[in-house]
């Protein structure tokens, strides 16, 4: 079902894009973890408290962010991470049929003894494999950052409060103490496995969507336009759903609602490492168990791939323009 020569061709074809995205994700993740160490937790809390009114727009409650793990987990919602993932998924997904048709190279390719399904699956193998490796690179960048970063925290001097007077009296005469420790002492890199999986599921959904549109179309620019339009509309629906309680129901109509890496990581912190891998255990913020959400994205992507194969097998291939 997968042709090794095609896999090699597609891998070579996408190597430059993959390397660029991979480098960006790995280095960004590392730098992002290091930046977390630069800002003192107390300062961070002070800054974030200013924005309490906008908490509902955040992917997770502010309280969950007042830990180093929570702050590192924000990496999964950073625009650069999303951008690199989206660029890889849309550019590779849109290329498979309409891209090759537009360049006129599909005819010579399909003149060989390979079925259309084999062509699509070989392409999918490279694209999905590339996506998985990108997600792993992001995780690896975070792990490297965690292993190589030290944190200096200011520990306020211990005080005692005099009952009924609200007066605090320091117990020592010295100033605040600065404590330096390795980030790995407080943050476990394995905690972010679930976030990595969420990012992969998010990308897989987009890959399937763009592959499906590509198999229907003959112009890549139109395929990219259609997928980006759906992405933006879904983003707007999700944003509206978060803006007010009255429109909360809208969130269920957006696939962004299923991308919740920070919530998954918070579950690891609060309930243990296996908590996000369960289909049961809905809480006040979720209608279903935590694994349900990435699974919806994976099943959605799979359905799009099946549609793409069915459509591609049945359609007439137009001659190159």
């Amino acid at each position, binding site marked *: 079902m997968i042709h090794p020569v095609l896999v090699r*061709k597609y891998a070579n074809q996408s190597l430059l894009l993959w390397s660029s995205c991979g480098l960006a994700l790995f280095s960004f993740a590392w730098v992002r973890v290091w930046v977390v160490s630069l800002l003192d937790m107390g300062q961070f809390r002070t800054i974030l408290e200013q924005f309490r009114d906008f908490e509902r727009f955040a992917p997770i409650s502010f309280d969950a962010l007042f830990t180093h793990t929570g702050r590192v987990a924000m990496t999964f919602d950073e625009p650069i991470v999303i951008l690199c993932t989206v660029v890889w998924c849309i550019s590779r997904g849109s290329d498979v049929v309409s891209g090759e048709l537009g360049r006129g190279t599909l005819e010579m390719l399909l003149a*060989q003894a390979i079925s259309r399904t084999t062509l699509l699956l070989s392409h999918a193998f490279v694209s999905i494999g590339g996506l998985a490796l990108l997600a792993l690179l992001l995780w690896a960048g975070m792990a490297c950052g965690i292993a190589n970063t030290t944190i200096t925290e200011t520990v306020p001097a211990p005080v005692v409060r005099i009952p009924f007077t609200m007066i605090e009296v320091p117990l020592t005469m010295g100033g605040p103490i600065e404590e330096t420790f390795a980030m790995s002492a407080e943050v476990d890199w394995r905690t972010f496995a679930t976030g990595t999986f969420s990012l992969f599921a998010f990308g897989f959904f987009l890959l399937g969507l763009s592959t499906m549109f590509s198999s229907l179309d003959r112009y890549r620019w139109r395929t990219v336009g259609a997928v980006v339009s759906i992405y933006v509309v879904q983003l707007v629906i999700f944003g509206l759903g978060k803006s007010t309680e009255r429109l909360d129901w809208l969130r269920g109509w957006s696939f962004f609602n299923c991308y919740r890496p920070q919530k998954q990581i918070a579950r690891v912190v609060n309930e243990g490492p296996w908590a996000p891998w369960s289909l049961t255990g809905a809480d006040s913020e979720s209608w279903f168990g935590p694994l349900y959400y990435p699974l919806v994205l994976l099943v959605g992507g799979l359905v799009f791939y099946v549609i793409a194969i069915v459509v591609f097998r049945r359609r007439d291939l137009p001659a190159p323009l």
Partner: protein
Amino acid sequence: MIPLPNIDSSLTHAVRTIDLTKHYRDFAALVDLNLQIPAGQVFGLLGPNGAGKTTFLRTLLGFIFPTGGRAEVMGLDPVKQSVEVRRNVSYLPGDARLPREMRGSSVLRFFAEIQAYGDLERSLDVARRLELDLKRFVGFMSTGMRQKLALAAVLGSRAPLLILDEPTANLDPTVRSNVLEMVMEARDEKRTVIFSSHVLSEIEDVCDNVAFLKRGRLVHEQSLRDLKQRHRIVANWPPAEMPVPQVPDSLREIVQDVTVHRDRIIIDTSGDLAQLLPWLESLSLSQMRIEAFGLRAMYDSIHRREDAETPTS
């Protein structure tokens, strides 16, 4: 050296179509096409733009699905067994485009690996004969160079059926003759070649049989060997008011057509001209000349006839 594939000697026809039809909504690209292409021959396809030649070839490869009738390629159904069909076919599209990010040598290696009968040594040999620089990236090649590269990939294969859609487009005269030579070499290897071209002289040079398509229909089939026995006699016909002369019954098999245009008479013949000479003498023709009835004359006469038969709106 990879041996040539065992070509099934019991297969009399490489391609056979029965009422093959392809409609795009109201537009008929192919209409009830019944065609048999004998195995081991070079078979020409002729027709004006939009005649359905490329549609026919793409249907044989399973790129497009017929809306009626059926086809057989090497005894296989291109709709249900398209992969098996393409295993036996090496196809050069009319507008062959190759991955621009690859070098010429990589393109040949890629196709040699992916083709069922691919042979890199043969492809490299074809490239050498076509004087192609394989170090260049496809993106930096001229149109002619890209055509040569595609030809090297296609002609290097040992597939029993070659389908070439306008193979000499964008090539200079020397390379054209090299390509035609390679087509004849393929026939010598008992492979079948379907050769679609607008260049009548090329078809005349290499093909054993030719089919004329127009508006998706097969309008004529011609053996090139028979064509060489056909002649056209052109002479002055001064008395404009005189009727077209009657052909004697004994010569009806030889004289195919007699037409008068203004002051000229055109007589198309097929067979031994010696029997015709007494009748020609009796017509008192002047400035008579006898031409071999080439493909050009046949092409023109078919199109004149078809145009006359097609009602104008």
